[in-house]
């Protein structure tokens, strides 16, 4: 991971700080340290995020779909060499789902620690995915853990101090219908990075790294296809479901395995929506970029 950051051009001071952090906080629970499948591309965002975490801050990554919020969060845990607990927030999540809850075992009531509790014990990185989907009362339990107090008060049990390496990285998607604004008290406990859309150059690098044999002319067209879909999504003509970078990469894997371009794109992108009208719009975008019967031999270098 550190060599990748060097390639990205992240400043040597920050990389040095990162190495110090890793030395000061030896690896725990190695099976929980992420081994990212994808790298996040974008030097500026990397530098901002690494600096914030080295300063002991918690990060809030905001941005639309396919801006790489979760990829960056995982990459950061890997770069800092810390175990990660990924909590997907939803409307029914309550405080006990975060901190832990009582359970009945061997004829007695016992506390079963939740992900935040375990994260605090092991100095892990808590990845709070779609934090604005949860109700404010569920999130209140995190206040003391996220501010200068760095403690977790478990009702009926002890006060748990955070291990020094503990950090929280929250992600949220503003403006998605139904989601709520993060309340001020919680928002003030994070430093916020507004995640930019992946640039055409970085997407090209991602595709090149993922599919090195893909011919350059097609690589550019697949990249443009993603941006065409993004514009259609921003224009409100299709839902966000087909705007799926992972789906595009999956489709390329299928093409490399011998599935023609049209069916592969359908499997990776178009069929993510079940709406036939929307599928028609997506196929039009594809037809204006990629010939649907391209074979592996045509797409990839031998």
């Amino acid at each position, binding site marked *: 991971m550190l060599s990748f950051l060097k390639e990205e051009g992240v400043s040597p001071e920050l990389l040095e700080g990162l190495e110090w952090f890793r030395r000061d906080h030896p690896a725990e629970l190695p099976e929980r340290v992420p081994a990212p499948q994808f790298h996040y591309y974008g030097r500026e965002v990397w530098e901002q995020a690494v600096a914030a975490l080295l300063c002991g801050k918690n990060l809030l990554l905001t941005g639309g779909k396919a801006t790489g919020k979760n990829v960056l969060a995982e990459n950061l845990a890997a770069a800092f060499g810390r175990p990660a607990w990924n909590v997907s927030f939803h409307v029914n999540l309550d405080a006990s789902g975060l901190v832990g809850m009582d359970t009945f075992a061997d004829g007695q009531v016992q506390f079963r620690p939740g992900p935040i509790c375990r994260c605090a014990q092991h100095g892990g990185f808590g990845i709070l995915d779609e934090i604005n989907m949860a109700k404010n009362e569920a999130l209140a339990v995190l206040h003391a853990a996220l501010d200068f107090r760095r403690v977790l008060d478990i009702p009926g049990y002890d006060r748990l101090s955070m291990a020094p390496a503990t950090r929280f990285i929250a992600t949220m998607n503003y403006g998605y219908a139904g989601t709520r604004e993060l309340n001020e008290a919680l928002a003030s406990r994070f430093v916020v990075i507004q995640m930019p859309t992946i640039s055409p150059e970085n997407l090209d690098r991602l595709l090149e790294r993922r599919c090195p044999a893909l011919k350059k002319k097609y690589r550019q067209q697949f990249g443009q296809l993603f941006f065409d879909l993004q514009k259609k999504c921003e224009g409100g003509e299709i839902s966000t479901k087909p705007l799926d970078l992972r789906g595009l990469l999956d489709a390329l894997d299928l093409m490399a395995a011998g599935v023609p371009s049209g069916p592969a794109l359908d499997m990776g992108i178009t069929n993510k929506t079940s709406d036939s*009208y929307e599928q028609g719009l997506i196929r*039009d975008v594809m037809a*204006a970029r990629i010939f649907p019967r391209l074979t592996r031999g045509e797409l990839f270098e031998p």
Partner: protein
Amino acid sequence: MSAHRTAGQRRALNQVWNGAGIYGYEPLFLSMNADGTLNLYLNTIVGCVRKWYGEEGPSRLFEAWAGDRRQTLLDDLAWLALESAAFQRELPHRPILADLRRAYAADFFDREHTLSRQEWMAKNQLSYTMQSARWKAVLGRRPPVMTPYEKRLSAALELGPLGERELFSAILELFARFRLFDGRSRPPPVLRFHLTGKWAGVMTRLMPTEIVHTDVASVGHGAGVDEESGPRLDTRRAKIRLKENVSSDRKYIESCFGPSLLPERELTAIEQKLCTGIHLGCHLWYTAGVPTPEQAPNGEARRLAQQAQLQQERNRAAFGADSALYQNAIRSLTEQIQNCLQVHSQAEEENARYGRLNSRRVWRAVVLSDQRVFTRRTDSSRPGFTVDLLLDASSSRMHCQEIIAAQGYILAESLARCGVPVRVSGFCSLRGYTILRVLKGFGENSRNIFRYFATGWNRDGLVLQAAGELLDSPPEQKRLLLLLTDASPNDSHRIPPGGKYPFGRDYADAPAVEDAAREVRALRRRGVRVGAVFMGPNLNAPAAETIYGQSLARIRSIDQLASAAGRLIRAEIQELE
């Protein structure tokens, strides 16, 4: 104002927007074949013209000869020139364009075999020759037989990848050089016809019409109306009807709109309560529909029933023709409302095997081996409120009845899928009767909304009061009333002399707006949340704000009704939390 578009047109529009990389603008042209299939290549090119040459330049170019007797020919030739230029500029960025162009060229000649004699005759020979030459060249075939003039013109239309500045002057210069257009538009001589009788009937179906309110119930079908000018109030004709026979009005209303939903005594009590003050002398009629032609008691009612049935068929057919687009809208709206309901749902507690220990149940674990001695919070999926949608069904909506019915269906179906009880009614006024037609009751099939038709006037103040009475027994405690309105209440039944108006006056303009605003406030005081989707001329926008205040969503096209109402509903759900 953006016009209503079919599913096919909407998809063609998307192809253009995709080519342009810009969404939401109105393109100059959409390319669709006679059989309804789309030309992906040409639509992409229309988009590319926007991308490389902007919006203003091309529209100025086409405006230059707008109205000219050779406009169609000039449009066709200009597009051939633009296609050539835009294709060459876009090709390096979109290599597949060459394949699409060849496929389109092949399709152009394939379609020749299916053209009828009339279609051939309608084609301009010069335009056809130029297109034929272009597409044969694309396919690498021998060019068609052409005169030297045509050969030169065909070559000249092959413009290179010109920049924005040179392109338009190059096309105008080309047209001047080939004596096609010298910069001055020459309109064809105008023919005027005055039609009466059957021909007038046929032409009013085909041509744009102006809507005039009368006090005779009839279901018309306007081909279009200028929304800015709005319908014209013709109280003179209405008064003539009113003086004819006041006592027969009730029979007339009953025969046209069907029996009252309420028993006589209840209806009389409501009338006595509501038809006072400026509504003195007015009547109310709550009904669930129009009798079938077989049930209609007299000829006039039978005619209305037949027209209503025809309109219902039109509503269904229009929905069926674009069902893919409408189903897409239903799915999207359902998802949004569902999401909003989930996020703002209320918590409930249930017994569970883990959670917060419930000391009063601990004995069950020891005695009954029941491990569910904890309580856990879950969210109630019960929405806890009802929606009443009131659709303006006065003559001013005659030109867009199919779209209103479809939009009402989208909204009702989306809410029903989210478990929100919804009732949809149409309202109009006729001969002093304010009629509230319940098109779809709570729990009924949403397809009943296709029974919507527009006729008569709209006395908004009284409708709001009448709706308030209907709202008293909904299945949920919290009630949301949404109206589709043009914020222009007017009725043939005058405000009677007395009080603020000693000489009486027409129920229209400021007094009618004030009345409607007063009734909205009264409903809100009773705990009913009232919102409105306003579609009407700019002139009425201040009136809409006066009546509905903040809970107002303005739409430019009736297509946006469901999404605007959805926005209001989402805002209300957040408020209800």
